[in-house]
């Protein structure tokens, strides 16, 4: 009898753990999608416009009835300045560009993602030479560049010279988590509380390419979401030397601590031949949607049983 109360309290304390454990690691709603018929939803304006082409990761954020799309437009050439475009939508399907010019062209902005905290939009993007930088905005339209991200090794020294791109941030409990890739050879994780200095949690990647063909040699992480007590990373990957150019495809991995990741056995989420990358999940109020970005925006809805 004396043990009854402690036992009951212990059981109550364990309920959240039990409930998370009871959930499948990869719920169907996070991994099973099929493209809609009217794809692509959004494409470059083409010749004669500032966005002859769009590329890499754009980002969609839904705030109630308002959907934001930030994308990278450029003149179609490799060295051409990558500029930030912006469009809005009422349904996440039909998009309207804001004006006929980029909303930001003072610096190179490519492969971006946006975290909204309070009323502030924080944009993490690649700058010139794949050096990640931070931009800030209150309205999502007018951006101020804060500067390159200062990423440090575990010992506090700067990471070795070279690109560090596809920055993906996740904010929780006063700590910013930054995932980044180096030449797509792995995903590293650094954290910061002040956004001035980011320190690796480990100097080894937290997510590596392979072993499957779809991400055998290259990976880049696009988004972190938290769902039912677990973290999910949406990323894309490619093998080298199989096709030219390489076909990229999207995958998902799960973690309980943001450091140790397990890839979904059913990856890639879409067939390799579709060559769909820079995928992100957006909740439309009733279900998750899966958007892929590179080259054009494609929408995928949950697969019907």
């Amino acid at each position: 009898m004396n043990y009854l109360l402690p036992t009951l309290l212990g059981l109550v304390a364990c309920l959240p753990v039990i409930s998370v454990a009871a959930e499948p690691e990869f719920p169907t709603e996070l991994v099973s999608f099929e493209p809609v018929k009217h794809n692509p939803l959004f494409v470059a304006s083409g010749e004669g416009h500032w966005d002859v082409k769009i590329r890499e990761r754009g980002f969609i954020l839904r705030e109630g009835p308002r959907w934001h799309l930030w994308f990278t437009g450029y003149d179609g050439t490799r060295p051409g300045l990558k500029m930030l475009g912006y469009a809005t939508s009422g349904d996440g399907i039909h998009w309207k560009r804001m004006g006929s010019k980029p909303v930001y062209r003072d610096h190179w902005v490519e492969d971006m993602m946006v975290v909204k905290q309070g009323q502030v939009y924080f944009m993490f993007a690649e700058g010139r030479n794949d050096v990640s930088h931070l931009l800030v905005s209150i309205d999502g339209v007018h951006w101020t560049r804060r500067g390159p991200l200062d990423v440090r090794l575990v010992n506090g020294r700067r990471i070795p010279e070279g690109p560090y791109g596809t920055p993906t941030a996740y904010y929780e409990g006063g700590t910013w988590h930054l995932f980044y890739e180096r030449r797509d050879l792995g995903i590293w994780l650094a954290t910061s509380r002040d956004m001035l200095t980011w320190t690796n949690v480990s100097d080894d990647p937290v997510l590596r390419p392979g072993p499957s063909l779809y991400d055998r040699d290259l990976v880049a992480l696009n988004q972190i979401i938290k769902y039912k007590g677990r973290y999910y990373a949406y990323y894309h990957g490619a093998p080298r030397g199989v096709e030219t150019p390489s076909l990229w495809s999207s995958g998902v991995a799960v973690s309980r601590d943001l450091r140790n990741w397990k890839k979904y056995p059913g990856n890639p989420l879409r067939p390799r031949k579709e060559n769909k990358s820079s995928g992100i999940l957006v909740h439309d109020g009733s279900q998750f949607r899966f958007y892929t970005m590179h080259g054009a925006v494609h929408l995928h809805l949950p697969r019907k049983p």
Partner: protein
Amino acid sequence: MDPDREPVGETGSQPSDFAAGTSRRSLWGPVAVGILIGLVYPASYGPVMAQVGLGRLVSLWPILDVLYAPIEWFAESSDLGADVVDWYLGLWGA
């Protein structure tokens, strides 16, 4: 003097003045706190967020996030709240 003993004699008129002064002083604290919370705190949101939008104070974000959580909750709790906060931020060019 025993603080519990009231003054007597020629200074007999002092107790009420003394008590009134103490009462006035004791009121100032809550009033000041009320003004701070009721006016200065929400009013500060606009200029502070305008600075954040300009890339300043970003390093303080974990603190600002907690400090202004009630206002952010208000902004996210209803369309009216969002409109009010957006309007106020707009006044600051944020």
